[in-house]
């Protein structure tokens, strides 16, 4: 037996964890268990990101997604988890319909993923590539300077490799607007009622 390819081993491990817990989210009907499975699935996905060489994105996945978004979701679960809402069952007909739609979608995506020969194999061994920390290059890209492909000779392709300063600004303002909107939407109801009462007076 050859040496174990540890890259493949950890890919299999994290891939199986991610897919298995994603299936767990779908099949479980208990909302608290679903939230826990989702945490594990997204954590395993960050492991896949690390394996693909995207160290900064993997870290952000753990910090923003698992540490921020999912904690928010779990707060939502805890605030609404009352008797009948903890486990709501779906009717069998909807399960059949969902299985048909999901199965056909999976068949399409699966055939598309396996149909291109160039995607099947890795380029000449993983160990030849030296690891590079991506945080600096990502930060430069967000500020509008792409430093990752400076040696690109083709001017047409160089033009397509612009920075992401404008999307970065837009997403920043969007995040601010969204957070203000969320705080406004989720404000306590009593204050609104009192405000309406004073309006009437």
């Amino acid at each position, binding site marked *: *037996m050859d040496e*174990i390819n540890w*890259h*493949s081993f950890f*890919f*299999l491990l994290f*891939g199986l964890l991610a*897919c298995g817990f*994603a*299936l767990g*989210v*779908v099949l479980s009907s208990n*909302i608290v268990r*679903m*939230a826990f499975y989702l945490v594990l*699935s997204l954590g395993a*996905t960050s492991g*896949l*990101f690390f*394996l*693909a060489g*995207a160290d900064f994105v993997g870290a*952000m*996945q753990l910090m923003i*997604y698992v540490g921020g978004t999912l904690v*928010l*979701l779990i*707060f*939502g679960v805890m605030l609404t988890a009352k008797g009948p*809402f903890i486990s*709501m069952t*779906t009717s069998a007909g*909807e399960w059949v319909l*969902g299985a048909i739609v*999901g199965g056909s979608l999976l068949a399409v*995506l*699966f055939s598309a*993923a*396996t149909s291109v020969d160039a*995607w*099947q*194999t*890795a*380029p000449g061994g993983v160990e030849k*590539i030296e690891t590079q920390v*991506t945080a600096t290059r*990502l930060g430069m890209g*967000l500020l509008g300077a*792409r430093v*990752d*492909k400076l040696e690109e000779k083709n001017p047409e392709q160089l033009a397509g490799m612009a920075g992401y300063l404008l*999307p970065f600004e837009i*997403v920043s303002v*969007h995040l601010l607007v*969204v*957070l203000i*909107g*969320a705080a406004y*939407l*989720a404000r306590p109801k009593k204050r609104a009622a009192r405000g309406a009462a004073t309006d009437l007076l």
Partner: protein
Amino acid sequence: MEALNAPVGVSHYLIVGAIMFVCGVVCMATKRNALGVLMGIELVLNGANVNFVAFGSEYLRPGTLGIGLDGQLIALFVIVLAAAEAAVALAITLNFYNNHATVDVDQADELKG
């Protein structure tokens, strides 16, 4: 043991992404709890993110062919937008729960004509 020796390519990542995506779609379609639908959306976004990172990875594609750093940058944007989306959707869900004392999406048809 052959699976442990074969090198990982882009298509392996695409398969994992496809499974997560389909799980998310089925979750969105079948769950009656509004928070369950939200979890389905998170799964869909993560499946897409796996694909972006796989296509941008230097480990899986030769440097001249991959989309380079674009994949990781777009994945970062997706993560931030998912956080924003979760915040707003959770606020709406809590508001709905305060007003109607339920999180069942089947009963959220008050705006229907």
